[in-house]
C-alpha cells in the first residue's frame, strides 16, 4: 500500500520544545527586573521570558537550564535559543551556549477521510488504546520511534515525537492502518 499518498498530506508542525544550558548560574531577580516581556514566578523558581521573533516562550531556571517552547521548526527553535542566550549575555551573565537539544516536536495532520476508532483499536490491540470515557481520541504509541499519535474520529491526528524526522516517519507508518479503517464519506454535499 502506498504510504506516501496521491495528494500529499500536510504535516503542520505546531510546537517544538528544546532545552539548553548556559553553564552559569543566573540571578532570576536581575533578569526579572531588567528584561522586557518577563514573568517571574518565585514560588516555582523560574522566569518566563517571551521573545517576539521567533515567537518563543522560555522558562529560565537559576541553575542555567532553559526550556524553549513555541517554535514552529527546529531551526527556529535554535535561533530563538541563541537569541535568548544573547539577551542573557547582555544582561551581564557569562553565558555559554551548550547542550542544545530538541526534546519534543508536536505536529498536526489531517486525513481526508473519517476514521472508525473502534475498529482501529481492535486491529492494533496492544499498541493502540481507546478510552472514550477519558479522551475522545485513540492513542497509538510507536515504541521504537518513541512517537505518540492521537487519532480522532474526524480524521485529524496529532503526532508527538523527539524530532521532525521521527514525526514524519510515524505519520507514514500509521497512514496505511488508518486507511484500512476509514469510513467512506456518503454525503459530501449537505444542504
Amino acid at each position, binding site marked *: 500500500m502506498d504510504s506516501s499518498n496521491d495528494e500529499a498530506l500536510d504535516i503542520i508542525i505546531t510546537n517544538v520544545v528544546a532545552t539548553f544550558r548556559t553553564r552559569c548560574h543566573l540571578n532570576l531577580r536581575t533578569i526579572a527586573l531588567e*528584561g522586557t516581556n518577563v514573568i517571574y514566578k518565585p514560588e516555582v523558581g523560574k522566569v518566563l521570558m517571551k*521573545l517576539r521573533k521567533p515567537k518563543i516562550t522560555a522558562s529560565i531556571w537559576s541553575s542555567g537550564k532553559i526550556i524553549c517552547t513555541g517554535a514552529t521548526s527546529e531551526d527556529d527553535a535554535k535561533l530563538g535559543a541563541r537569541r535568548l542566550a544573547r539577551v542573557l549575555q547582555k544582561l551581564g551573565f557569562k553565558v*555559554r551556549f551548550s547542550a542544545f537539544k530538541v526534546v519534543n516536536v508536536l505536529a498536526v495532520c489531517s486525513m481526508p477521510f473519517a476514521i472508525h476508532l473502534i475498529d482501529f483499536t481492535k486491529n492494533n490491540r496492544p499498541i493502540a488504546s481507546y478510552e*472514550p470515557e477519558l479522551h475522545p481520541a485513540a492513542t497509538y504509541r510507536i515504541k521504537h520511534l518513541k512517537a505518540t499519535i492521537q487519532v*480522532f474520529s474526524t480524521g485529524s491526528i496529532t503526532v508527538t515525537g523527539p524530532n521532525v524526522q521521527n514525526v514524519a516517519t510515524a505519520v507514514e507508518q500509521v497512514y496505511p492502518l488508518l486507511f484500512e479503517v476509514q469510513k467512506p464519506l456518503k*454525503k459530501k454535499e449537505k444542504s
Partner: protein
Amino acid sequence: MSSRVCRTCGGSDIDVDQARGSAVCTSCGSVLEDNIIVSEVQFVEGSGGVSSAVGQFVSADGPVKAPLLGSGFHTSVGKESRAQTLQGGKRQIQQLGSQLQLNQHCLDTAFNFFKMVVSKHLTRGRKTEHVIAACLYLVCRTEGTPHMLLDLSDLLQVNVYILGKTFLLLARELCINAPAIDPCLYIPRFAHMLEFGVKTHEVSMTALRLVQRMKRDWMHTGRRPSGLCGAALLVAARMHKFRRTVKDVISVVKVCQTTLRKRLTEFEDTPTSQLTIDEFMKVDLEQECDPPSFIAAQHKAKMQQLEQELARKLDDVEGEISCYKDEIETELEKSRPKLRGIYAAYAKEIDPEEAEVLSSTSDPEEQEVEDDELQAATQHLTQDFLCQVIQEEEGRGKKTDDNEVEAGPDMEGAGSQRQAAPLAAILGKLPSAASLGLQQTLDESETGEKPDDEQSEGGELDLDGIDDQEIDKYILNEKEVQVKTELWMKQNADYLKEQKEKEERIKKEKEQGTYKEKPKKSKKKKEQIQASTAGEAIERMLEKKKISSKINYDVLRDLNRGGTGSGGGSSPSRASSDPPNTNTTARKRLNRRRRKKANDTNRDLAANASIMGKRVRLLISSTSKRKKTAVQFYSVGI
C-alpha cells in the same frame, strides 16, 4: 518407596500396612519402617453425624507459617510484607466491590489482577486505592458489567482522569485487552434508575434501538457512552409518554446538560429523527451519516473558503484605495517640512538615553505599525493624530528640563513612549534626514555604551542571524529598571517578608545548633473527638474531614433529631425526601451517604444505650437537656 530391598535378608517382598503405618519384610519379618507418613485424607465425624475432612487449605503463595486461627481473622503478626500487602488488598477489594455489587467471581478475578500487579511491582509509587480501583474496573470491563469509571471515582472521591491513567497503565502492563465500551450495556442500568415501572423493558428496547441507530450514524465515536445513553433514554421515555426532564436524566447519567442537549441536536440532524415513532420501530434507514464533528469541520472549511473569496474581492477594491492613499500622503508630506525641522532640533537636545528609549520602543512598534499600513484608513487616522502629538511634544520638550522629563512618573514615561511610537511610524515611512540622523546618533550611543559585551562570549555562542539592536530591545534601561523594581517590590511585599522571616528563622536555628536541613513531616495523630451529643460528634468529625462546606448542618441536625426520635426509621427515603440544598449529583450522593452514616451511627448508639442500661440514662438526664436517646458515648467509654 515401592519395592525396596530388605536390609537383613535381601528379600524384596515388603508388606506395607497403612493402618499401622509400618513396613515389614515378609521373608525375615524385620520391621523396616515404623510410623510411615501417610498422605491420605481423613474424615472426622462432627456433631449430628456429619463427617468432614480433617485439614486446612493452604494457598501456594500464602504465609510461610500456617495461620493460627482458621476463622479469617488473620493477625498480622509474623507475616511477610508481601502477604500483608495482598491481604490488605483483598480486604479493600472486598469492601469496594461490595459497594459496587459485584459478585464473588468478579472479586476473585480482581484479586488475581492485583496479585499480578504486585508481582510486577507496579504498586510502587501509587496509592493502593487507585490500584485497587483500576483492578476492579479492569474486571468490570472484561466481564462487561455496567459499571463506569465515574462510579468508582465517586466512591473514592478521586479525579476520574487519575484513575483512568492508572487503569490504562495497568491494562498495558498486564497486556489485558479490555473490550471497548458499548453504550448498550448501560441502558438497562440507567433505565432502572429512571423508574419506568412496568414499562422499563419496553423503554430499554426502544432506547437500545436508538443507540444502535446512533452508532450507525457515527455519533458515538469519541464520545462518552453515558451521554449517548442519556439522549437515547430521554427520547425513548418521551416516545412512551413518560415525562422525564433533562434534569432527571442527567442526574442519573452523570453528564452535563449542555452535552445532553448537544447529543439531542446532533440526533435531530440525522434523517432518522424525521421518522415517526411507528416508522422508527419498523424501518431502519440504510444511509449512514458522517460524524457530527466532521460535518462541523466541513462547514468551517466552507466558511473559510467564502471568506477568502470575499477577501480577494476586497483586494481588488483596495487597489483603488491605495492610489488615493498615496495622493493623501504626498499632500501631507508637503504640509510637514516645518515640523520635521523642529523635531530635528528637539532630537538634538535630548540625551542619548532618551533617544535609546525612543528607539528601543519604536522598533517593535514599528513592526506592528507596518502591519497596519496595509489598511489605508488607519494610516490616515494616525497621521492626523501624529500632527497633534508632535505639536504637544514640541511644547513639552521646550518647557521642562530633560531631567525632569526623564524622572517623571511612569505614566508620563509610558505616554512619551507611546507618542514616540506613532512618530516612528512617520519616520519609518518617510525617508527624512531627521530620522536618519536620529538613528545614527543612536548607533553611536549604543556602540559607545556596550563595546565589550559582544566579544566576551567565550567563543561558544554563534551570533549568526542575531540582530544585536533587536536583542537590546529586550533589556530595559536603568530608569525603567528602577521603576520596575519599585513596582515589583510593592507587589511581592508579602512574599519578600516571608522569605526574610524564613532566613531569620534559619539563622537562629543555626546559632542554636538545632537547624534541620529539611522539615520533617510530623505525623498527625487523630484526636479523640469530645462531644456531648451524637449530632455534635458527627459535625466535628465532618469538620475535621473538611467536607463540611457542602453540607447544610441545620438539615443534618434536624435529621438526627428526627431520626433518633423515631428510633432511626428508613434512612434512604428520608434522605432522598430532604430538601435538596445542593445542586450537583455528586453532592447529593455525598449528602445521602453522610446522612445514612449519621443515621446508622445514631441507630448504633441507640442500641448501645439500651445495652448499657439505666446507668447511661441517668447520666444523660443529668447532663444534657436534649432528648433521651442522645448518648454521651465517649465518657462511658464505648
